[in-house]
Structure formats: structure tokens, C-alpha cells
């Protein structure tokens, strides 16, 4: 039986449009119906305008019929975290009364140029309020944060892929909680232009999708040097087609990645996964991070705190403005009150930045010839309720280093919540990490759609 359009991934939709199996208008219509049916329950979309989506899809359909495909994502629907500028749509992060943006952020502009259909803005915490987004696997649980709607919309098959952003663990966390995959690329791979800032040296645009192949294709489109963001690197974007690794990978299971703060169900899943990978031929070995590694959380607090305090100096004048945020992130080891962080002296910020590079080098020196490290994404499955979007502390160190990290969903807990692993490679080994992820995905399989219907 042929799959329904909402069940197709990025690569399959792009290929179907190219072959003329369906049109961008048919794809858009199928997903509009899906969103209209499910979003009242899931609440993934903060801004959704079917008229605008149909208008985009009509143009793309006419182009496809004339044999003019804009690029590798022609007719592929994409959700956008409400932190990125989308021309003509308000950006939720600007707060209440935000006006429609006059231009697209660079990642969104690149998506449009490649033929993507922009499906709207996905929920994230704004102004200290947690989003109303529910986990598609269990509506009584959080979808994670802060890319809450992006994770839930991909998990619920409302879109095949969505943009997220990660400053601590905001993209990989929601992906793991919602049973899908994600990449947080290396620092500088994707432009931050038009991405509302949290932290100048920690914000990473990210991709949440359902397979490594889908994510690689989208990353190849949005990556690349951007004159509007001087921190982007000059390396050419990674290829869009994910070729085989060509061999079994060499993987290190991180043994001192804070098992004392991680639930047994997560630790057991890592052991089970490591066993599966080994059985399939991967060289699996134990790995220990340098003993100084826990400094990463302290550095992250200082760097994130000072940078956020600087950006928000006009808005957050009292530490008591932030109580809601602090409560929501009560378990987040990397989160500090941004108004109070303004008290941190400049010498401490620069010392933290020095320790940041020093610790990254220590960790890189211990990496050896491993293809990737494997560890937990989060200490628990998705927490119950919506008030706590989960603990991102196991993801923050890799965001601090600017190293690429992926989330792979591997199974379900006994109560039906997604479980997964985090894999990390050294800086600028993004494509290689996606290849390793694809090898593991092939062995471990991917989760089916959640039983939302």
C-alpha cells in the first residue's frame, strides 16, 4: 500500500515532486489537513496560515509543471521555529505585538530558494512562558524545549522537517522526546542571521527530521558562508546526498557522562543500543571524558548568562522578571537568571572563554580515532506535564564546544515514551557524523508515527 503524503520524508517528497508523482500543491494540501486535524491537540504551530501555504505551493507547482525545479527541496514542507525571521510573519521571540518581518532569516531564505514550502512558525517558550505544545507520543507530557513545536510537528508527521535552534539542548532534546532525529551542526556551519539571539557564541541553528538522509539534505541547503553572519565558516556546505560510510564505525560509549544523574531506563537503553551496534559490526569501546569535563557546565552558565544579559539589558532590568523562566528551567544545570548574570565581571567571562577552548582541546586530544561518542540525550524520558520542558544539561557541553551532535531515536520506554541516544563528533565533522548516524539508524531502525489518530 502506498504511503500517505504525511508519512513521507524529505528525500521522498523531493523525489516524488521531481518525478511528477505528486505536485507541491498536493503535498501542501495533505499537510494542511494533517495540521488542521492534529494541531488542536498537539499545539505545535504558533503561526499557521493555510492561504499563504497554498499560495507558495501554487507557484511551486506551476514551476514544477514547467520543468523548473528551484532546488533540492522543491515542494518540501518545512516548519520554522518561532525564533527565525520569516518574511510577512511575526517572530514570537520579539514578544507580544511583533510586526510581520520585512525579510527572511538566512536559513529561511535558503530554504525558499531551494523550493521549500514554509508551513509556519512552531512554538517555543516566549517571555518566560512555556509553550502549550504537547508530546505527540503522550499528550500529557512535554515535547521538550525550546524547539518544542519543531520537535512535536515532525514527531506528529505534520511536517517532514523543521528548523530548530540550540543554545543549550533546545533542538536535540525535543527531537529525542518526540521520537525523531536531529542535528546540531558545528559552530559556523549555518548562518544565524535573522535568528533572534539568546547567546552570541552559543546559538546554533539546527535541523529536526525523521532520518539522517532527510537532515543531511536540508543541512546542505541551509549551510554555507553568509556575509550577513561573520561567524559562518568558509567551508563549502556538506553534500546533500548522504553516501554510505562504507564500513562499520568505531564508537566510544562515554562511561563517565554523569550516570549518577541519569535514570536507569536511559542507561539501560544505551547499553541495549551499544549491544545492537556491536552485534552489527561496530567497534564499540568504553570512553572516558577528561576529569575536568564538568567544568563545561560552569563555563556555559557564565558565557550564556553574560551574553544573554548583554542582549537583554534593555528588557530584563530586574532578576524577578525572570522567575517564570527560572521555574520552568529549574532542572537545567546550564540556565542562570539573565538579569543577575549582568553582575558577572568581565574578567570572569574572559576566563570562562579561555577555559572553554582549553577544555575543548583536552577533550579533542582524548578522542583518538573514534568516529563518534555515544551518550544520553537527557537524564529522563519526556517529563510529565508541560511546565518543565526537560533537562538539557547533557547536551550543553557540545553546544559550548561548537561540535556537531545528533539525536537518534532508538526505542520506547515501557510506558510508550521515546528513548534515544546522543552521538557527537569533533568540530566540523558534521557530514561524517551524519554518515555514522545513518549507519546506526540502519541497524537500530526508526520509530513509527505516534498513535495520535
Amino acid at each position: 500500500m502506498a504511503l500517505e503524503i504525511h508519512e513521507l520524508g524529505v528525500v521522498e517528497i523531493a523525489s516524488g515532486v521531481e518525478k511528477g508523482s505528486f505536485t507541491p500543491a498536493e503535498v501542501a494540501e495533505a499537510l494542511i489537513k494533517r495540521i488542521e486535524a492534529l494541531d488542536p491537540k498537539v499545539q505545535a504551530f504558533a503561526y499557521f496560515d493555510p492561504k499563504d501555504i497554498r499560495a507558495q505551493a501554487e507557484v511551486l507547482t506551476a514551476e514544477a509543471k514547467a520543468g523548473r525545479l528551484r532546488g533540492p527541496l522543491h515542494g518540501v514542507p518545512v516548519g520554522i521555529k518561532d525564533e527565525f525571521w520569516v518574511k510577512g510573519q511575526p517572530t514570537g521571540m520579539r514578544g507580544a505585538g511583533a510586526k510581520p518581518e520585512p525579510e527572511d532569516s538566512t536559513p529561511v531564505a535558503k530554504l525558499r530558494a531551494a523550493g521549500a514550502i514554509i508551513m509556519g512558525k512552531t512554538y517555543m517558550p516566549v517571555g518566560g512562558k512555556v509553550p502549550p505544545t504537547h508530546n505527540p507520543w503522550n499528550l500529557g507530557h512535554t515535547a521538550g524545549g525550546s524547539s518544542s513545536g519543531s520537535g512535536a510537528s515532525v514527531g506528529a508527521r505534520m511536517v517532514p522537517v523543521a528548523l530548530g535552534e540550540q543554545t543549550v539542548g533546545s533542538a536535540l532534546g525535543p527531537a529525542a522526546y518526540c521520537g525523531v532525529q536531529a542535528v546540531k551542526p558545528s559552530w559556523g556551519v549555518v548562518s544565524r542571521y535573522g535568528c533572534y539571539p539568546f547567546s552570541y557564541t552559543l546559538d546554533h541553528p539546527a535541523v529536526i527530521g525523521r532520518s539522517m538522509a532527510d537532515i543531511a539534505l536540508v543541512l546542505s541547503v541551509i549551510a554555507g558562508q553568509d556575509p550577513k553572519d561573520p561567524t559562518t565558516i568558509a567551508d563549502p556546505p556538506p553534500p546533500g546526498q548522504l553516501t554510505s560510510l562504507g564500513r562499520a564505525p568505531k564508537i566510544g560509549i562515554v562511561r563517565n557522562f554523569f550516570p549518577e544523574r541519569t535514570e536507569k531506563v536511559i542507561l539501560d537503553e544505551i547499553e541495549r543500543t551499544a549491544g545492537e551496534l556491536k552485534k552489527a559490526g561496530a567497534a564499540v569501546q568504553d570512553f572516558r571524558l577528561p576529569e575536568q569535563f564538568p567544568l563545561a557546565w560552569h563555563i556555559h552558565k557564565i558565557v550564556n548568562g553574560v551574553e544573554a544579559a548583554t542582549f537583554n539589558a534593555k528588557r530584563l532590568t530586574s532578576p524577578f522578571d525572570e522567575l517564570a523562566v527560572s521555574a520552568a528551567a529549574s532542572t537545567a544545570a546550564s540556565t542562570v537568571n539573565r538579569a543577575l548574570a549582568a553582575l558577572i565581571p568581565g574578567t570572569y567571562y574572559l576566563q570562562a572563554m579561555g577555559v572553554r577552548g582549553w577544555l575543548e582541546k583536552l577533550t579533542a586530544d582524548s578522542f583518538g580515532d573514534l568516529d563518534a561518542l555515544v551518550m544520553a540525550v537527557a537524564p529522563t524520558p519526556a517529563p510529565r506535564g508541560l511546565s518543565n520542558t526537560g533537562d538539557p544539561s547533557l547536551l550543553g557541553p557540545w553546544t559550548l564546544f561548537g561540535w556537531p551532535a545528533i539525536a537518534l531515536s532508538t526505542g520506547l520506554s515501557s510506558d510508550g515514551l521515546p528513548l534515544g541516544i546522543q552521538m557527537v563528533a569533533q568540530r566540523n565533522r558534521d557530514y561524517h557524523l551524519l554518515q555514522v548516524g545513518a549507519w546506526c539508524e540502519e541497524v537500530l531502525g526508526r520509530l513509527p508515527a505516534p498513535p495520535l489518530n
Partner: protein
Amino acid sequence: MRLYPPVSEQEALEWLTREAVERWGNEKESELREMLKSIAEAMAAVSAVDLPEEVEPAWP
């Protein structure tokens, strides 16, 4: 606040609390102190790292 010799968490907390009270008043001093603990802990941790002199701040 000095960076060297390394500060203890308690010293950092005392200093931060004084600064916070000066800025936001002493009505909620205990609440401020509670919120400042994690910053004090982070400041003490990074000041305790004896970095080689050639290490400069790293910009990613």
C-alpha cells in the same frame, strides 16, 4: 571581584549578593542570594582553573 587567587563559592556569593542588593534593594535579599548560588558556584569553578599563560579566550 578578583580572579586570582581563586575565589571560594562563599566569597563569590557574598560579593554577588552585595552587588545585587545595591542594585535591587535588600527587601528580597534571601531570594536573591538563593538565585545567585549557581552563578557563585560557576565563578568559583572557573577561577580555580590555573590556565597556562599562553591560553587566550577562545572565540568559537
